[in-house]
């Protein structure tokens, strides 16, 4: 398969078109504006619909409408814009509508910076909007994974009738890297016989709603959703372990910091330090069991969690999985400043010193 050099954001858009995205609704915001730009130029040619909305709030509700009528719908934004989309995402989850949402994260809080960050981990994995719900969160760490995950996200969304988020950061959106357009495995999907697309002779009318005003009904609905989330946790959890078989110290990182960690591993291993990388690929469902199992291994002495967030957001999930079995050190950089290879190496060495 021939390699092509693609910019992350444009690759995201092209991947969606190849996945059969019927419609895209978006609003400009740096560093993801190339997604709507590419969509505006290419999606209509592929027979799809592009609308530049008046706001992120409108965009996600256009997605709600199109998805509710049975379409493959997508929107993309960056952190402050994704905050605005939260209303729509909880309604999508409540009404059980499939949709793909891209968050090309930048620094916050507030307007923050347009440079890359990972401060939206909580928002993405804890729901973000009101109520009890989950969205599958895929976290690619290079452009190839990004295009693969975007394509797969549509199938995951359709399979579970649930929004799926592809959470990358501004660097992945802006960088160029060779990719292959290899075929992505298609899932067997249930028919969208629930869609409110016009009766056209159907013997009943379809209703898309997230309101269940009677307490018992709403409680049942929540139970139904929770059972669905349990299925997702069972089937969709993904992670990668690099050189963890004999690792004394394990870096936990996702997205861009995970690939920075790969460079750190090369240096550490060359110096004889047994370091490994545990990379969650789905942030929800979080690979809790796998990390727990790793933490139970005798050869693992400590963990170093690295994020582009100063408060340590994924750190909470790492702690929950490690359950105090091994010490965890934290390296966080935010506001658009990325953790460096050198910082990772220094922290790994000092953490090892503490436990040896």
């Amino acid at each position: 398969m021939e390699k092509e050099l693609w910019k992350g954001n444009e690759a995201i858009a092209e991947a969606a078109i190849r996945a059969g995205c019927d419609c895209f609704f978006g609003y400009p915001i740096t560093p993801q504006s190339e997604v709507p730009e590419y969509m505006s130029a290419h999606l209509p040619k592929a027979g799809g619909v592009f609308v530049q909305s008046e706001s992120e709030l409108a965009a996600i509700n256009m997605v709600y409408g199109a998805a509710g009528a049975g379409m493959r719908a997508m929107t993309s934004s960056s952190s402050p814009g994704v905050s605005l989309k939260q209303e729509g995402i909880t309604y999508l989850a409540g009404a059980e509508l499939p949709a793909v949402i891209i968050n090309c994260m930048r620094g916050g809080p507030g307007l923050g910076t347009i440079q890359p960050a990972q401060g939206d981990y909580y928002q993405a994995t804890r729901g973000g909007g009101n109520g009890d719900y989950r969205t599958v969160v895929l976290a690619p760490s290079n452009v190839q994974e990004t295009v693969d995950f975007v394509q797969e996200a549509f199938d995951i969304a359709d399979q579970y009738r649930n929004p799926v988020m592809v959470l990358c950061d501004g660097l992945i959106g802006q960088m160029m890297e060779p990719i292959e357009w290899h075929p992505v495995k298609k899932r067997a999907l249930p028919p969208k016989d629930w869609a409110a697309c016009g009766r056209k002779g159907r013997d009943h009318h379809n209703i898309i709603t997230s309101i269940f005003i009677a307490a018992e009904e709403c409680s049942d609905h929540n139970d139904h959703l929770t059972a669905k989330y349990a299925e997702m946790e069972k089937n969709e959890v993904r992670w990668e372990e690099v050189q963890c078989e004999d690792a004394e110290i394990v870096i936990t990182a996702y997205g861009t910091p995970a690939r920075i960690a790969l460079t750190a591993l090369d240096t550490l291993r060359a110096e004889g330090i047994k370091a490994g990388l545990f990379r969650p690929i789905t942030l929800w469902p979080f690979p809790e069991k796998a990390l727990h199992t790793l933490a139970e291994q005798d050869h693992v002495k400590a963990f170093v969690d690295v994020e582009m967030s100063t408060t340590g957001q994924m750190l909470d999930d790492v702690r929950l999985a490690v359950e105090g079995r091994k010490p965890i050190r934290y390296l966080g950089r935010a506001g658009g400043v990325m953790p460096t290879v050198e910082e990772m190496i220094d922290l790994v060495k000092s953490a090892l010193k503490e436990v040896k």
Partner: protein
Amino acid sequence: MAVVYEKSKGLTDAELHYCPGCHHGIIHKLVAESLVELGLLDGAIGICPVGCSVFAYNYFSCDMLEASHGRAPAVATGIKRTHPDQAVFTYQGDGDLASIGAAEIVHAAMRGEKFTTIFVNNAIYGMTGGQMAPTTLIGQKATTCQSGRTVEQAGMPIRVAEMLSTLDGCVYAERVCVTDIANINKAKRAIKKAFEKQMNREGFTFVEVLSTCPTNWGMTPLKAVQWLKDNMIPYYPLGVIKDKGLEV
């Protein structure tokens, strides 16, 4: 035996939850009859708002979606753009459309989205218990302006049909009421015309229906009708505000 009258096939058999004297029931009927008479019902897709008509999806027999507060025009945009041959309508109240959803309705109209909005203006928030709406009249009492709305506090009420008619994408805007047979007939003609223009792909179409809220106005249904005539119509004049077809 000849059938003199039957319930519209555009409505289900579900019992309406609206208060006695509320005009939603009449307006639902007019929308349903219009869809049936124009042969649009089978493909129609409706969007209900947040507010008293939040459960309208139980009453219309076509496919329906429930939108979040104020976003029905965005939801309708997503549907109509992907289903350009089918009738799409939003059914919204004044809090939903003129307050929280002001951006969505203005931009849908600006883009000339080819769906129809039925805007039910009863000058108050009904479902949440009688709070002030953007369309509440000066001096009118509500639970968040208990001595009556003042200009100083809340400005002058918004005339949505007139505002939207300034946008080129809005091809048809008419204000009607359903207080008596003559007005009900006019209202139905307006709604049918809006759907016809939608299906002709002319642009955004808008029908504002003045409505009573006896419960939150604190009046009997009859008194509410009289209040609507005496107070609302002078501020919200009835009639065609824009009809691009007429101008041409």
